[in-house]
């Protein structure tokens, strides 16, 4: 008898648990059928939704129901991306998205030549996952602006200076040739000197000094010989650096046009989830009114 009751209550509990899941899924299904993206987001993460959109302080118990749809996130993301990307298009007009596989989106910054792959768009969590290296470059580039410098200004100057040194080395070839001729004459003279025992140390020293100078000039000759190649390589490096500066400049300009400055841009990113869902809230209420 008691056993049966226990059986019954266990069955009740399980039935209830299953009913909860069915209820969750059918609510989700209805939301999809009605195009109620806001409801879908609410169902996907109720804790976050109540904290950030409803701004309730009371903590809701985590019910793990959202885990039911974990393995259809790609389809959910694909579905939700339509409206989200429309919305983002107005606020972040400089981002372009490419769905490289169902529900997964690359973010490209800008439409200029060789624009950067800037990270991923996490549709389910309404979040940008920026590429850390690229993002840091942009942040640094904004910081350097106060010193009216670009990210690669110092590097470009260093490489240019090196090229200039190399060019001077090439230009000075005639001078070196003259010097070498003189030094060789001196060397001859030196070896012809009558070497009295008390003078031999001095002559040797002189000889070594001349040889050292000749070696130094020979080293410079060799560098000059390879200079053309090095200068060409430097030009290529400068091109890569200038290109990056140009891209960063376009990125900064885009951010300024849309957000005035980098801080406002970051603030917008931080509140993106709440802002987007609030915008959906307004929309769905509007739709209801029209329907009524």
């Amino acid at each position, binding site marked *: 008898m008691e056993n049966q009751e226990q059986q019954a209550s266990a069955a009740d509990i399980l039935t209830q648990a299953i009913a909860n899941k069915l209820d969750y899924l059918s609510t989700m299904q209805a939301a999809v059928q009605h195009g109620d993206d806001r409801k879908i987001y609410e169902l996907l993460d109720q804790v976050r939704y109540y904290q950030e959109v409803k701004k309730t302080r009371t903590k809701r118990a985590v019910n793990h129901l959202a885990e039911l749809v974990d393995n259809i996130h790609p389809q959910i993301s694909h579905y939700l991306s339509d409206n989200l990307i429309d919305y983002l298009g107005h606020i972040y007009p400089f981002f372009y998205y490419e769905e490289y596989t169902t529900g997964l989106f690359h973010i490209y910054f800008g439409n*200029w030549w060789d624009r950067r792959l800037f990270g991923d768009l996490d549709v389910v969590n309404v979040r940008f996952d920026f590429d850390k290296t690229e993002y840091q470059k942009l942040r640094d580039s904004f910081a350097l602006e106060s010193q009216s410098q670009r990210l690669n200004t110092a590097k470009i100057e260093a490489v240019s200076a090196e090229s200039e040194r190399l060019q001077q080395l090439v230009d000075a070839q005639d001078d070196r040739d003259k010097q070498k001729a003189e030094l060789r004459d001196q060397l001859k003279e030196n070896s012809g000197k009558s070497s009295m025992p008390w003078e031999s140390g001095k002559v040797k020293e002189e000889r070594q000094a001349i040889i050292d100078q000749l070696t130094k000039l020979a080293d410079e000759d060799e560098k000059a010989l390879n200079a053309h190649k090095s200068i060409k390589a430097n030009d290529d490096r400068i091109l890569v650096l*200038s290109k990056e500066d*140009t891209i960063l400049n376009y990125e900064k300009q885009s951010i300024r046009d849309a957000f005035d400055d980098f801080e406002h841009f970051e603030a917008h990113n931080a509140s993106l989830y709440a802002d987007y869902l609030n915008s959906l809230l307004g929309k769905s209420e509007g739709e209801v009114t029209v329907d009524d």
Partner: protein
Amino acid sequence: MINENDPSTLTTSGRLLNYNEAIKTGLETGLTFTKLMDQLIRTTDPDELVSAATQLADFQLDSDYVTFPHQYSNADYYLLFMSRMLELHDQGNQIILQSRDHREELTQQLTSLGDRGTFNFRVEPSANGGVFYRERATGQSLFYLNLERKMLRFNSHALTQLFVIDLHETVPAETVKTSVQVLIDFARYLKEDYGYSVDFNLLDAANRQNYAVRAADLPAGIVDRLFVVAAQNDYMLTNGVNGNGAEIILDEGVVVDIFNNQLSGQPEWVLTVHDDDQKISWFDVLLKYPFMRDWYLENLTELEIKSDPLIFG
């Protein structure tokens, strides 16, 4: 046995008759020539003009028995033909034909360019025939013309060397444009009125024209360079519409694209210039935008627009 083809078998009167016939033929050739010259110089009918020029192009005036000591070269008839053709289209004042005092030789100047360029035709000695229109001082052959095969081919290398490089410092862009327009018009009449096959090359203003560049597999660095200099000049090089190249929007709706025209297999990088009126060519872009010109000239080894390889190979 009397064989008319073998003089040794002929009687004296037979030989004289043969001789007489040869002279007659030679004189008739001369007469035909004078008729063709009359036609070339005087006709107001473009068809007759082309017909005279085509016949004179490889006319053999001398024969074994009759030779003419004073002769213009065949190349000169082309100059005459060109100026008459323009004259019949009311553009006769755009070129000046000059003859030398004591020699039968013609040269030509483009009126707007004045003595900064003197032009003539040079006969192509090979079996292909035809002539090259060239600037005498620099030897640049601007186009190739073959009346018999009804074809005209502009030479991008020579046009660039002469008009974009050599005359850049001394001649204003507008003047260059006016001068080159005369050559374009001449070619256009041949194409439109006589169905000539004409390659306008970098002078072609049609939007559909793909200007193939010399380095079929263009190194990426070259497009990068345009990106950087364009930004310095307040123009933005963007990703091309077709996704395999770049695009730059210049002023007044002029759009230049540079892209790989082959979706698979061997790459073929080309330039295009689009504008609503189809009036702007790559050549015009080079004249108008110093940064495009610098970029083109600095990378000419890779970027030079290809000319007909059969003619300018």
